[in-house]
C-alpha cells in the first residue's frame, strides 16, 4: 500500500513525463492537455495549474484553452465513455430516441452525464463521420452502427454484467 504522499508524487510524475515529451513547448499546449486527459481521464485542476507554471503561462490562459475545446473535461469521466452521434445523418435517422433510451437506462437526469459509480459517461457528439451507418454510437473506441434503442441498451447491459462479474465496483 502506498501512502498518500507517495500516490500524490506519482500523480505528478505522469504530467512531468508528458511535459518532457513535448519539450515544455507552450505552443504545444493542446497536445499536452490531450496527453494529460488521456492519462488522468480528465483535466484535474491542480494538474492544469502545474502545467501552466511549467510552461510559463498564466493559469487563466490554460483554463481558457481547456474550457474552449469540446474534448476537454474538467470533471472525471466514466470508465466507459458512450458517444452518440448527433450529426445530420444520425439525427434524421433517429439519434434522439437513442439518447433518451440510454439516459433512462443509466438513470441520468437533468444535465448529468456521468453515472454516480463512474462507470459510464454519456455524451452526444456532432459527427463521427460514419454517416453511412447512421445512427452511430461509440463506446470508448468501439463503433456500433445502425444502432437502435434496444440494441444500444443491450450493449450497456452487457458491459454492466461484465463489470459486475469482476467484483464490486466501489
Amino acid at each position, binding site marked *: 500500500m502506498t501512502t498518500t504522499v507517495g500516490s500524490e508524487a506519482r500523480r505528478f510524475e505522469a504530467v512531468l513525463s508528458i511535459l518532457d515529451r513535448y519539450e515544455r513547448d*507552450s*505552443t*504545444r*499546449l*493542446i*497536445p499536452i*492537455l*490531450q496527453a494529460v486527459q488521456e492519462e488522468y481521464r480528465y483535466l484535474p485542476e491542480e494538474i492544469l495549474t502545474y502545467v501552466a507554471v511549467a510552461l510559463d503561462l498564466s493559469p487563466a*490562459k490554460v483554463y*481558457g*484553452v481547456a474550457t*474552449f*475545446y*469540446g*474534448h*476537454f473535461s474538467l470533471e472525471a469521466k466514466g470508465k466507459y465513455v458512450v458517444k452518440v452521434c*448527433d*450529426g*445530420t*445523418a444520425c*439525427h*434524421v*435517422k433517429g439519434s434522439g430516441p437513442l439518447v433518451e433510451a440510454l439516459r433512462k437506462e443509466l438513470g441520468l437526469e437533468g444535465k448529468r452525464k456521468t453515472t454516480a459509480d463512474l462507470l459510464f459517461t454519456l455524451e452526444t*457528439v*456532432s*459527427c*463521427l*463521420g*460514419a*454517416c*453511412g*451507418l*447512421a445512427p*452511430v454510437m461509440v463506446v470508448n*473506441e468501439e*463503433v*456500433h*452502427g445502425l444502432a437502435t434503442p434496444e440494441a444500444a441498451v443491450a450493449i450497456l447491459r452487457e458491459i454492466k454484467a461484465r463489470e459486475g462479474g469482476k467484483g464490486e465496483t466501489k
Partner: protein
Amino acid sequence: MSETVTSAPRAPAGRPDLEGIAASWKAARGRAARRVVICAGTGCIANGSLGLFEALRERVAAEGLAVEVALDYEDSSHKDLLLTKSGCQGFCQVGPLMVVEPDQILYVKVRASDLPEIVETTIKGGGIVERLLYRDPVSGEAKRGKGEIAFYAGQDRRVLSACGLVDPEDLGEYIARGGYLAARKALYDLSPEEVCAEMQASGLRGRGGAGFPTGRKWELARRQAEAEKYIICNGDEGDPGAFMDRSVLEGNPHSVIEGMLIGARATGARVGYVYVRAEYPLAVKRVRSAVEAARAAGFLGKGVMGSGLDFDIRVMEGAGAFVCGEASAMVASIMGGRGMPRPKPPRTAERGLFGKPTVVNNVETLAQVPTIILEGAAEYRKTGTELSPGTKTYALTGHVANTGLIEVPFGATLREIVFDIGGGILGRDGRPDDEAFKAVQIGGPSGGCLTAEHLDVPMDFDSLGEIGAMVGSGGLVVMNDSTCMVQMARFFMHFTQNESCGKCVPCREGTRQILALLDDIIEGKADESTLPLIEELCVNVADSSLCGLGASAPSPVLSMLRQFRPEFEAHVRGKACPTGQCPALTPIAIDPAKCIGCGMCARSCPVGAISGERKQAHRIDPAKCVKCGACVEKCKFNAIARGAK
C-alpha cells in the same frame, strides 16, 4: 538557412528511382495468385471487418495455403493469397466489404461463417459465392463487381480511385500506382513559379467549402519574402454529415502528403501540419504512419527526394471545436491557443502560423494536386465545368437507398446523385419510395436545402450559390417526407449556436435568440411576429459576424424558410406539425378499438385529461392535454398514439 527552395533543381542524380520501387512492388505482387482486400474504413470496422481479416488469415493458413499480409520484396516464393486491408470503399451500408482480385468480385455483408465457403469456392477454386454478391434492391439481380453496381457505375472516382483498393500503410503500392511521380516532377522539372502557374491554370478550387482558387492562394504565399513559411492540411472536417476527408486520410494518406510536398515546393514552406479531427482516430493513425513511411523513404525531412528542399510534416489532433476549420482559428489552435478567428486582411497566406505566411488547404484539395501536376492543367479541365473543374466527393446519407461516399464531376445533377447512384428515396417504413422525396440538405450548417425543383440544377460552386445553397464540404443528407423542416432548422441552429466561439456578439447572442425563437415554434408558443423576427435576426447575424461560421450560420434556416414556408406557418398559425415530429403540436388520442379500459393512462396523466368508465374505452380531453406523452408510455396495449386522428 540558405534559400534552397528557389535555387535551381539539382542534377538528375538525386532523383529517386520511383520506377524501380514500382517494379519491385509489382514483381512481389505478381508472386501472389490472388488478392483479397478487406475494407478497414471506419464503417466496415464497425461491422467487424478486422475480426474478419484475422479469421480469414487463420483459415487460409489452416488450409495449408501460402498467405502473406504485407508484401515481402525479398521473398520470391509463390503465394496463393495476398491479404490486405484498404481504406473506405464507400459503400459502408453493405459492409464489411471484400474484394477479390483479379476476379473483380465484390462480396458484401461478409460474416466469419462465410469464410470457409469463400476459401473453398473462390480462393481455391476461382468460382463465385453467389449468395454474397450485392443484389440490386429493385431487380434483385446479383451483381458481380463494382463495375456492375449502379452505386459505383454512376461515379467518376478520381480522388477516391485508390481509396478502397490500395493498402494505405504500403508506400510501395502508392508508388506502383504512379505515386510521388508528381512530387518528383515538381521538385526536379518545375520551378515554384511553374507549379503555381499550373495550379492556377487548372482552376482547382478549394474543396473545404468556399471554393477559393488554390493556385492563387499558393501564388500569394510564394510571393511573400519570408524564409519561414508553413502549409497546413485542414482535416478538421466538422460538418455533421460529411466524411470525405476522413475517408481520404484513412484510405490514401500518401496522396495528401504528396499534395503537401508539391505545395511546399510551390510556396517555399519548410514545415507542414496535418490538422485532423480527434473524432477520427483511425485517420490520425494512418496519417501518422504514412508520414513516418514517407520520412523513412526520404520523401520528407532534410533534402526531400534528394533535392535541396527541406520539408517535414507534423500531425496534430484537433480538440473538438468546429470553428477551427476556419483558417485563422486553426492557426491559433496550432499555436496552443483558443481557436478564435481574427479579422482579415492580412490573409493567413500573408501572415499566419507564428506570424509567417501560411497556406491552408483542405484534404480533398491536396489530394487532387498530384494528378494536376502529373497530367497537366489542360487534362484536368476536361472534367467538370468551366468555372468548377474536376470532380467532387460527396457523403451521401439519410433517407436514401444507397448511402456512402461518392465522387462525381462538377456539373452532375442532384437527380443523378440521388436517384441513379443513391438508388432513390426510402420512405417512412424504410422501403424504397421515390414519392417520399422531400429535400436534400447540402453544405451542412453553412449550407441550404434543395428540393424537387432543383433536381436538375448542375451541382457546382456557382450554380448552387445562385439558389442560396453551397457545395460546402460536400455532405448530402437526403430527407423524406417524415422529416420536419422546423426541427431541421433548429438542429442546425443548435449546432452553430453550440460551436460559436463567442468572439462576435451577433454570432454568439444572435444564434442563441434564433434558436429560442425556433424552440417557440416547436413548442407551440410562436405568434405572428416570430417568423419576421427570425428573418431579421438572420440577416443581422450574417452581415455582422467576423468569420464564415457566423456569416453562414443563418443559411440553413433562411433556406428552409424559403423552401418550406407553409410548413413553418402551419406550426405558427395552425399549431400543428404536418409531419407529426413536434410532440407539443401533435395530438394524442386513444384508439377505442384497442383500449380495454384498465385506467393506467388516467392515473399517469398529470393534468387529469383522461376520463372513462372502468373496462370501457377512455378518451383524452384535447383542451386539457399538455401532450406530455406519459400515457403513451404507460399503455400496455399500444392503444394510445401521437398523431392519431
